[in-house]
Structures are given as C-alpha cells and as structure tokens.
C-alpha cells in the first residue's frame, strides 16, 4: 500500500461540483506536482491533504491512518508565506519547532532553528522581521519552518508564485538540493510547467474546473540529478514539456464538455518513451 492514498475525493458546494473522482497515490520519498488552470481545485485538494478543509466525499489515508484534521505530520508552505509579522524569522521557525517538541529547552530550539535557517541560506538575517525581508527571503523562512518540524510529508501551495523569475530559480535549486538530501515526500501545486519538470517525479494533470478531474499522471523521466541550467539538454525534457503544455492549452478543457472521457483511474503516461506501452496501460483501465 502506498504511503499516501487518495480515493474518490470530491468537493461540492451545494449543487456545484469543484472536482470529483480524484484518486491517486504518493509513495514515500516521492515528489509529486499537480498542475492545472486556476479554479480546478488544486488548493482545495492540498487543504484537504493538510486537514484544513474537508472533502464532500472520499478518503485520504497517510501512513495507514485516515487524515481527519491538521497534524504536525504534514508541514505546509503557504501561498503567501504566512509568516507572523510581529516575530523575527528565527522566532517564526521557533514557534513551529516549539509546537513539535514542547519539551525542548531554549538552546535545543535555537540550535535546531539555526540549522534550518542555514539550510535555506538565511544565516545573518535570522533576527529580521518579515517586513524587513524580501519576498524570496520570506518564502525561504516559510520553507525552513515547514522543514524544521520534520514532517512525514510536505505540502507546498504554489510557493514561488509571487516571486520574480530570478529568485524563483535560486529557491527552486535550493529545494532540489534539500529534497535530494532529505528524501522528503512532497506534494506541490504549481502553474509553472518548467518548475514541475525540474522538481517532480510524477506530475498530475488536472482538467479545468468546475467539475474537474485528474486527467493523467505523467511520469517525469528526466534523469536525476537535475540542474536548472542543464536540464533542457536531456532528450526527455522537451518531450515532457510539450506534452504538458499541449495538455494545458488544448486538452484540459475537453473533460468538462465530455469530449474527452473522464478516467476512473487516471492513465499513467511517459511522454516520448514506450508510447505504445502507455497505451496498453491506458486500455487496461
């Protein structure tokens, strides 16, 4: 059984259906990205995984236990960093660390925080308030806070959406490095096709909402280690990229109207590789 299992998840507000029949699984240590247009319910799925929202239907099981509310086992990096502005960067992280290990003394908390501040490259800025930090630095504090509680799973809600391209690249590199070192299980929401190829092992493609579904699961066959500057030399890179862009531009809207059939179990696709084999898997479902 997979580490995280999502079965038949649905969210409805009265008669309107946000998404339905969302089922997928995440293995331990896997990095899964979900990509789709605004309004398809990506954030709602993440909030349900975090325990901050409840599903109208379906079940989420992590590590053999049903997810029934927020938990320290799942760390969240929020879209808008969500740092407390009256606390310094260090105190923001310490707030989380003290929640995780209430028995630790001040020195233990401090040392632990310092380690994660160093990990995101913020040494020297730990005593600054969020208002004194740049957007990128704030988001790094948010990432350090989520990593510092050493959760079983990390949920990232478009963490780099508000950053400029340059900063985004730097932090993406850091995330690649940290995830490679920690083997953290991660679920990431993104709008950015390149970001998903750089970071993820699997990419879930979501059709347009309302009435959205998971249309495909793309296996990211670009080899690791990946580097932002050289990744486009990998022959698989453009095959996957084209597949994702083609989905977002043309196919994502077909599922609402019924032109494309909603899969009961989303087909697994390896763009550019054994396309015949992928079709066989497709047919079996």
């Amino acid at each position, binding site marked *: 059984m997979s580490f995280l299992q999502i079965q038949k998840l649905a969210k409805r507000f009265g008669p309107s259906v946000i998404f339905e029949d969302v089922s997928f699984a995440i293995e331990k240590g896997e990095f899964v990205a979900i990509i789709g247009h605004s309004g398809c319910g990506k954030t709602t799925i993440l909030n349900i995984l975090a325990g901050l929202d409840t599903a109208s239907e379906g079940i989420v099981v992590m590590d053999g236990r049903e997810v029934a509310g927020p938990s320290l086992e799942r760390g969240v990096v929020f879209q808008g960093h969500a740092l407390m*502005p009256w606390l310094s960067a260090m105190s923001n992280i310490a*707030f989380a660390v003290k929640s995780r290990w209430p028995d630790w003394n001040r020195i233990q908390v401090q040392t632990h925080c310092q380690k994660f501040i160093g990990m995101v490259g913020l040494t020297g800025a730990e005593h600054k308030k969020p208002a004194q930090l740049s957007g990128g630095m704030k988001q790094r504090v948010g990432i350090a806070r989520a990593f510092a509680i050493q959760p079983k799973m990390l949920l990232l809600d478009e963490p780099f959406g508000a950053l400029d391209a340059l900063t985004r690249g730097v932090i993406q590199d850091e995330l690649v490095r940290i995830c490679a070192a920690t083997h953290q299980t991660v679920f990431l929401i993104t709008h950015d096709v390149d970001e998903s190829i750089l970071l993820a092992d699997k990419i879930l493609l979501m059709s347009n909402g309302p009435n959205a579904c998971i249309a495909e699961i793309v296996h990211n066959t670009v080899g690791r280690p990946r580097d932002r500057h050289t990744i486009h030399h990998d022959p698989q890179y453009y095959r996957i990229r084209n597949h994702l862009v083609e989905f977002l531009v043309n196919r994502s809207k077909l599922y609402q109207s019924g032109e494309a059939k909603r899969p009961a179990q989303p087909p697994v696709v390896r763009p550019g590789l054994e396309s015949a084999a992928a079709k066989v898997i497709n047919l079996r479902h």
Partner: protein
Amino acid sequence: MALSARLKGLLLTALLLAVFVGAWHLATLPKAAPQAAESEYSKLVGAQAAVGQKSAFPTPADFGAKLLEHLKNPFYDKGANDKGIGVQLAYSIGRVLLGFLLAALVAVPVGFLIGMSPLVYRALDPFIQVLKPISPLAWMPLALFTLKDSNVSAVFVIFVCSIWPMLINTAFGVASVRREWLNVARTLEVSSLRKAFAVILPAAAPTIMTGMRISIGIAWLVIVAAEMLVGGTGIGYFVWNEWNNLSITNILSGILAIGLVGMALDFLFGRLQRAVTYTE
C-alpha cells in the same frame, strides 16, 4: 539658513501662542472710563472711576502668577474645599485608571469571545448596540442609588464609558486575524490557549490598543463631568468649586491642567500602541 521642518513648526507654534497671549492681554487691559466721570460717581467709587475699570476676566499676567502659585505648591491639603491642584488631579487620574483597568479586565476577554464566536457576537450585539450610545452620566443616578457611594459611582461611570471602545475593537481585532496565521497554528497543532496568547493576541494587539487609547480619552473627558456631579474631590470638582468661588484664574488653571493630563495620557497610550504595532 535652512531650518528643519520641525524647528519651523516649533517657531510657528511659539508665534501663535504669543499672538494669542497678546490678544488676550489687549482684551483684558483696564478700560479707560468711557466719559469723564461725574464728580458724584467719583466720590462714590473712589479712584477706580478715574483710571477706568479693571476687567473681571484675568489678564495673562494674573493667570501666570496664579499658575506659578499652583506649581509651587501643588500638593497641599487644607480641608475639603482647599486642596492643591496636584492632589485634585491625582484623585481624578486614580479614578480614571481604576475604572479603565476594570473595564479592560471585562472588555478584553469578552471581546475575545465575541471575536472568536459568531454565535456570541450575534447574542451580545443587540445589548452592545443599545448600551453603547447611552451617555455614561445617565448611569450616575442609578449608580448612586445602588452603590450608595459617590466615589465608587464615579469609578463606575468611568468603567461604563471606557468599556465600549475596548470591547468593540478587541472583538474586531480578534475577528479579523488573518486566516493564514490561524491555519499555521492549526497545522502545527497549537493548543487553543497558546493560539490565543501567541497568535491572536499579538495579531489583534494594535487594534486592541487603539480601542484602549480611545477609551482612556473618553474616560478623561467624562471624569470632569462626573466629578462636577458627585463633588468632593477631583479636578472636575475643583473647576466647579472655583466657579462657585468666582475665581476665573483658578478655573483657567484647572482647564489647562485637564488639557495637559489628557495629552499626557494620550501620549502614553500612543507609545504603547506603537510598541505593539507590526508592519506586514
């Protein structure tokens, strides 16, 4: 020479003050007798008639002399009707702080409850809406009847008038704490008590302090009127007593003292407000 904006402001303030005092001085100059005094009138009132009449309103010099007198010995106590202006102010400040503190003890927790629970908000809102616009002095007879002590009644009136801004601001501040900070606390499985003190209180603190600053201002306005009613001690009673004594200089001294203390209280709460304010 380039003067800093601050210095320019200060100079202008001094100039305005000088103009005001000058105008006051001119207005209160002894008036020359409008016409040659009749000899019979002169005989009756003496030299006054010849030099004209001194204004009943004190001159700035009179006022300054009186002020100096008050400043030299502000804390004497020579019986019920003759206490130094410092003693009277201390009574008033004491009542205001006591009433304000009691109000804070009620308003902040209840405001928290209202802010956190929409049900409590709906249940209490009608009471707040009816009670809030009542002039605090309207409670005075009821307070005197039930509490049977003028001093306690004055404190009660301060309590009533300072409770509303604090209650409403606390409730508003607590209700508008950013959802994402609460979500952070939820994902970290923070206990309700820690959430209240470590997340909601600091997040709402600037709004709560604004309420407190408004409250202390209102309390200082109300105490003067309340003390005029209940009598005995306090700066309000002092002003009213000096009206009965027809001592305009003392009334003016009282008015100036009320203004200065009010300014000091506002300054103090402004400082506190700045201390808890954060930039996002």
